[in-house]
């Protein structure tokens, strides 16, 4: 009898099958749906054994929140970008040029302190409710008044919405800001906090003034947009179908159905893409991206946007002193990390502001990796050897940087405890006020502005009023620098571009060099994978990792 280990057999098979992974398999692709694998006749398109009118999107995770007053995550927006619309939107891949959507045209008064929008006539919500100026006003009064997270996007300019938003006639709405606001149209094109929900929802599903339909909107959505939600299976999939009464009509090529699937495993997303089961997939590991990019059946993006990835350094406990946080910056091996672990899928960040941000200063101080210098600063800050710091990240985002940092910290005699959280648990950690001993010292996170403006970007991340003890915002390191606060506050109303740039040059020097808030790790490149037969994709640097489903089609 031959004694053989079943485990050995299986893994022999495994090794054999995995050899030859060096090159992508553009011809001999698996064909799910039966039959033997073999060369496909048209090698430039992956097999498609399903309904051609359905778009299937594989994302790492989606979250259910369809309330424009609270939904502030890309993982939520990727669903409701097909359901809600705002008055205007950013044009194509521009971060500053605005085009009409629910508003056909708009104008400002002479000093740009008052803006008037003319709405498109005849638009209805998917529940049949008419869309008009009153609906716009009701929505924004609600969003700003509820204070559930996205309120400050418009609320930074409109503090008394009931008075400042004026219904001129059913198709005209005016925003009296009271101070010169040259880019208010750009603000109105923000993805978050500007969506318009059917007023019927606010009437029929409100459980009180503090709710105004919020609870109901966590699982339902009614907007003016091209798609309506058919089914929502949290953690599994969302199905959107065409809104038959959509105001822009259904002429031309559009998908009938959009299926968004939650596939946390990057390798599974890639496999589903390659086997033809999904049309669009979020990027996986650098190795995955390289392989898919080399495969002619797919199109892989390579677009720099305003998404910045960073490690928040808690300004408390062992890292309370600026020297300690400077030391962390000297420890991080920027170039090695970006070149080897990230394989160029992340570009080195130039300070704490994205390259494409309006006021970005190209001459910002850049930390070299310098371990003796870090040691010296740690000694100066009085951080005792053997101190243990905590690093928190969420599944699938930031483990690599944590391990690298752990290795680097060991070189200066410090320990790093790495904690993995599920996304929503980490999100709650970041925005909840807790005693110092329950906080992590570092959080791996990413952010981009709602619209291209340095104060909008900075306020929620660096302003002392945005720390978790003040609001459920993302200054999760409890960063507090009074000069930075001043600059951010003043920046909202500064109309002189040169002055604004000078102010934020100073702010960035503080945030990077003098009193660091983060380790700015890198700038994300949008490398979403598309089947080559999908047309109409636009990478907007601010509408990150979400798509205009109405514009997409299959060739």
């Amino acid at each position: 009898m031959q004694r053989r280990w079943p485990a050995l057999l299986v893994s022999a098979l495994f090794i054999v099958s995995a050899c030859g992974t060096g090159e992508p398999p553009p011809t001999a692709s698996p064909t799910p749906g039966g039959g033997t694998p073999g060369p496909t006749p048209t090698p430039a398109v992956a097999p498609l054994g399903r309904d051609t009118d359905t778009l299937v999107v594989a994302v790492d995770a989606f979250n259910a929140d369809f309330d424009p007053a609270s939904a502030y995550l890309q993982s939520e927006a990727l669903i409701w970008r097909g359901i809600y619309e705002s008055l205007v939107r950013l044009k194509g891949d521009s971060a500053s040029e605005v085009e009409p959507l629910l508003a056909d045209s708009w104008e400002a008064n002479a000093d740009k302190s008052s803006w008037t929008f003319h709405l498109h006539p005849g638009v209805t919500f998917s529940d049949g409710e008419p869309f008009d100026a009153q609906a716009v006003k009701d929505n924004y009064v609600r969003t700003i008044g509820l204070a559930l997270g996205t309120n400050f996007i418009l609320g930074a300019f409109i503090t008394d919405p009931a008075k400042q938003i004026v219904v001129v006639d059913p198709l005209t709405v005016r925003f009296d800001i009271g101070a010169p606001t040259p880019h208010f149209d750009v603000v109105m094109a923000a993805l978050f906090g500007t969506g318009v929900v059917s007023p019927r929802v606010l009437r029929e599903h409100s459980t009180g003034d503090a709710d105004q339909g919020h609870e109901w909107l966590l699982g339902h959505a009614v907007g003016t947009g091209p798609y309506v939600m058919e089914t929502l299976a949290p953690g599994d999939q969302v199905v959107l179908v065409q809104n038959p009464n959509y105001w822009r009509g259904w002429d031309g090529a559009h998908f009938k159905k959009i299926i968004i699937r939650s596939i946390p495993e990057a390798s599974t997303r890639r496999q589903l893409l390659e086997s033809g089961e999904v049309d669009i997939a979020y990027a996986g590991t650098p190795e995955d991206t390289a392989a898919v990019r080399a495969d002619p059946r797919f199109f892989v993006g390579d677009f720099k946007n305003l998404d910045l990835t960073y490690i928040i350094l808690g300004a408390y406990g062992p890292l309370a002193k600026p020297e300690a946080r400077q030391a962390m910056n000297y420890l991080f091996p920027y170039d090695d990390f970006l070149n080897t672990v990230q394989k160029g899928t992340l570009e080195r960040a130039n300070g704490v502001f994205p390259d494409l941000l309006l006021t970005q200063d190209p001459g910002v101080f850049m930390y070299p990796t310098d371990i003796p210098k870090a040691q010296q600063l740690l000694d100066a800050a009085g951080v005792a050897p053997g101190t243990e710091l905590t690093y928190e990240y969420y599944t699938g985002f930031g483990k690599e940087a944590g391990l690298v940092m752990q290795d680097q910290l060991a070189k200066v005699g410090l320990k790093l405890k790495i904690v993995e959280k599920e996304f929503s648990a980490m999100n709650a950690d970041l925005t909840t006020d807790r005693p110092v001993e329950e906080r992590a010292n570092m959080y791996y996170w990413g952010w981009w502005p709602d619209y291209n403006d340095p104060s909008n970007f900075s306020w929620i991340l660096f302003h002392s009023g945005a720390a978790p003890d003040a609001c459920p915002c993302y200054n999760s390191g409890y960063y507090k620098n009074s000069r930075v606060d001043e600059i951010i506050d003043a920046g909202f109303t500064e109309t002189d571009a040169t002055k604004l740039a000078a102010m934020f040059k100073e702010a960035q020097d503080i945030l990077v060099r003098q009193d660091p808030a983060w380790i700015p790790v890198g700038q994300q490149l949008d490398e979403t994978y598309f089947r080559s037969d999908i047309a109409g994709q636009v990478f907007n640097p601010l509408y990150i990792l979400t798509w205009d489903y109405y514009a997409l089609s299959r060739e």
Partner: protein
Amino acid sequence: MIEPLARSFGRPGAGLVRRFAGARRFVGVSRLNLLAVALVGLVVLAAVFGEILAPFPPNAITLLDRLKPPSSIHLFGTDDYGRDLLSRVLAGARISLQVATIVLSISVVVGTTLGAVAGLVGGLVDEAIMRVTDLFLAFPALILAAAIAATLGADLSTTILALATVFWPWYARLVRGQVLSLREREFVLAARVAGARASRVVRVHLIPNVLPFVIVQMSLDVGYVILSTSALSFLGLGAQPPTPEWGAMLTDARGYLRDAWWFPTFPGLALAFTVVAFNLLGDGLRDWLDPRLGRH
């Protein structure tokens, strides 16, 4: 609840103790037993001497060596941080055995004590202890362990606690059963009639007679503890980075199935072989000691 047979030994046999004493003959019974002993020996050696044998420190990151295939320098290749997989697999052997040892030690001490007390004292005490035991057995083990690990915070130490919580009731039940049956046996009765102190009865008669059962049960459980530890780590509820635990390594490897075959292969093989080795040993021991099967 009727005790599942898979974890019981039925009626105790008089020859059991003698049988256990002649352990050398165990490997002669079947070549599978020899194989089991050899494999377990190999795993133990790897755990003990792994640190010396390992060519690299298991957690040393060399970013430039990311995902290198097996070569003469890195026999098992490297992982996504350029860490030497052979060194990590060897370190993993030690971790797995350590966890199994601690989990089973706690389970055996707690379970044996409670089981013996229940069996010796009887009455309400017995009833109370055994109902609590049944209560813990009513949970699906892995889910209870996962819930405990998640509640206390994912870490290898909470994994140990969680698994001990899941495993001790089996020992309590096993030991109670044996004590109950031994209590009525002539030699114990005789000793008690002769006026031997309770502690002496326990030491001289009960422990030597119960111990073999416990040891066999432990050998059957080692594999299952190692598997559960890896499963919890694989789910992100156990060992945290950079601990070179096999299940945690496999989680990391999931992202590179297609591009680096060596990464999931070697930790997986190590895990499978180790569990097979211990299960084979436990299975052989049980078969060999089970009197119902009356060896020829």
